[in-house]
């Protein structure tokens, strides 16, 4: 028994384990065709995933040992397991972290399995691209989703104006805001949540202007002028009472029950297309989904269909081929597709979509239709975000938005800080 864990031993141990794993030499106990799977989600997703795992075991023989956690707990656990050389075989991965994990070989490149264990010829090209880091495939998209504006239809009826459609613009938003402000329903419900610190909204707005959040090289894709204009836009919306107060918006700390839509503070809220079902479960009013507002009539290109999440194969997995074949089964098997529905997003294989579409109910149908009919709102797929994007989002975009909202900083100050700070973070991460 180790009484004293020498730091050298600790380093040696974990790196040796990881090196051995990468070379495909796993410890004896991993040779059994047991595959470990880890994913985040709630019970609903867990039920579906377990059913598909059972189907896979029946079809291919590998037993799947699955574990699931809530989003917040998932990442520390996964990081701990990886640091301890104990990462699972199949790992659910997110856009935000895939670059980190891929760059450090904590997940394995899958190009070698294309055409073999992975039969993905008909896979949506943009979804396949979305899982690539530095040109290599690291994750298979489990479903496409797109950003979407959630709409509380009942609230709009109460105010007596038309709910927005995919054609709506920022000017239309101003008008809706004024209508809500004067109608003053439900204790002062505003038209829209405060989107100034929503990274997706900023991204969408920049893309409509021909810019982007990040460039393919990992630098910033916009300048100070854009940033200042962004904050000024939201100041205007805030002053005109179109969006919620900063105090209300600050109540939103992530969990669905804290969001403006569920707490009844606004009738519109930016979100993702695959979350409609979850929100509908919490809100008694009927909900709908439209695209983000256009900056002017006819201007599109802000949206893109992004992978909602991926399955990756663990870098130290002993049986990567079996893991890859599980992933393949997950996204292409028709029985599996029926079980999974669109809970993780819109399936990326046309054949799977065809199987799933007739089985969908209300909210799920709305989501599917929305993503399928984005039309000119769709723009090109952006390059994968640089590794430090998460930090830029939480440390700068979110915080600066709040500071401007509470009046602690002016739009000009915030715009400058955003650009300067983001550049600093990006260059530090790149070094």
């Amino acid at each position, binding site marked *: *028994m180790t009484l004293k864990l020498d730091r050298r031993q600790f380093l040696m141990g974990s790196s040796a384990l990881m090196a051995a794993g990468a070379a495909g030499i796993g410890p004896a106990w991993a040779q059994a065709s047991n595959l470990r799977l880890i994913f985040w989600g709630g019970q609903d997703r867990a039920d579906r995933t377990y059913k598909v795992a059972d189907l896979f075991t029946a079809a291919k023989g590998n037993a799947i040992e699955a574990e699931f956690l809530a989003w917040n707990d998932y990442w520390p656990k996964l990081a701990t397991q990886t640091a301890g050389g104990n990462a699972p075989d199949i790992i659910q991965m997110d856009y935000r972290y895939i670059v980190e994990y891929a760059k450090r070989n904590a997940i394995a490149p899958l190009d070698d399995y294309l055409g073999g264990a992975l039969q993905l010829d008909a896979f949506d090209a943009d979804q396949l691209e979305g899982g690539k880091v530095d040109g290599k495939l690291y994750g298979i998209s489990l479903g496409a989703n797109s950003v979407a504006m959630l709409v509380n239809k009942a609230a709009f009826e109460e105010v007596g104006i038309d709910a927005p459609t995919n054609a709506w613009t920022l000017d239309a938003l101003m008008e809706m805001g004024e209508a809500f402000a004067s109608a003053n329903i439900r204790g002062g419900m505003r038209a829209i949540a405060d989107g100034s610190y929503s990274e997706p909204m900023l991204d969408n707005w920049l893309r409509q202007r021909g810019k982007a959040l990040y460039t393919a090289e990992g630098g910033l894709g916009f300048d100070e002028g854009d940033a200042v204009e962004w904050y000024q836009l939201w100041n205007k919306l805030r002053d005109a009472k179109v969006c919620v107060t900063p105090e209300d918006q600050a109540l939103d700390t*992530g969990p669905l029950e804290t969001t403006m839509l569920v707490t009844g503070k606004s009738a519109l809220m930016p979100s993702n297309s695959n979350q409609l079902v979850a929100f509908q479960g919490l809100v008694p009013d009927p909900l709908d989904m439209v695209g983000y507002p256009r900056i002017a009539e006819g201007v599109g290109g802000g949206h893109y269909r992004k992978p909602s999440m991926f399955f990756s194969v663990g870098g130290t997995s002993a049986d990567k081929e079996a893991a890859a074949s599980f992933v393949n089964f997950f996204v292409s098997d028709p029985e599996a597709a029926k079980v999974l529905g669109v809970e993780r997003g819109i399936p990326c294989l046309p054949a799977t979509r065809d199987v799933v579409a007739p089985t969908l109910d209300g909210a799920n149908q709305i989501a599917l239709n929305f993503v399928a009919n984005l039309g000119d709102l769709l723009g090109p797929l952006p390059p994968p975000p640089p590794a430090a994007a998460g930090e830029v989002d939480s440390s700068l975009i979110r915080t600066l938005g709040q500071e401007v909202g509470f009046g602690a900083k002016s739009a000009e100050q915030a715009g400058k800080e955003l650009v300067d700070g983001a550049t600093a973070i990006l260059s530090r991460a790149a070094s």
Partner: protein
Amino acid sequence: MTIAQDTSPAVAAAPPRASAFSRFWQQNGSGYLFLLPWLIGFFGLTLGPMISSLYLSFTDFDLLTAPDWVGASNYVRMFTNDAKFATSMRVTVFFVIFSVPLKLAFALGVAMLLNRGMKGLPLYRALFYLPSLLGASVAIAILWRQIFAGDGLVNKFLSLFGIVGPSWISNPHYALWTLIVLSIWQFGSPMIIFLAGLRQIPQDMYEAASLDGAGKWRQFWKITLPLLTPVVFFNAIIQTIEAFKSFTPAFIISGGTGNPINSTLFYTLYLYQEAFGFFRMGYASALAWVLLALVALFTAFSFLTSKYWVHYDD
């Protein structure tokens, strides 16, 4: 003397080590024997990870690949180029200064009340401990929002008096106070410890004092408080250490963000963000050791000054 010197080599060649050891064992053996479980645990399970984390603080460790030695640069950055470090330190110190004394005051006050032995005592005791049972559950976050949000209970109560309160929990000026209130609301643990301490004061001392004509107030000052000082000391130290390390309330109420505008960015929350959010475990380890140094200084100072006011019976 010379005679002794002549014979001493022979005697000295006999087992000097054995006698030194057996002397050591006789004097200290029972102490170490009783301490054995702790020693095994310390050397086997605690020391290694502690030293590892100290080592990691001098590295760049992103959790997924092996650590990279970078010397003291983590510490340098912390003190020269990290605004969030200063913010989180400020938030935490503020929290400690306000939550600990208030919490202890409530705990002691209620413990004394409950020690009197009134009707319904066990029930009240359990009720006052209930908030601490709810601990770190997700429910607390939801509840605290219901109470302290703009349209929450507190404001509804205030509106009865015509006061329009802000959204306490999401306003950067007040959000930290809601966490302070949360900490105080969970005073059950120190209260129980005070109760146990009060219970250990023998009743006959009070009886003797009453017979001597001492009133309740005098009894409190001359008997209760002095005899309670070991427990007060314990609670003060422990609550302060825990307050410095406070993580879960801020984590669940702000969703791990330190919302709004980092006004609830507790030190360990910042540490956690660095470690698991941004994959900078090396830096997080450095942060942890700075905290340890700070708390250790405070504790050492408290112990040194404790001889002036803490009365032990030994």
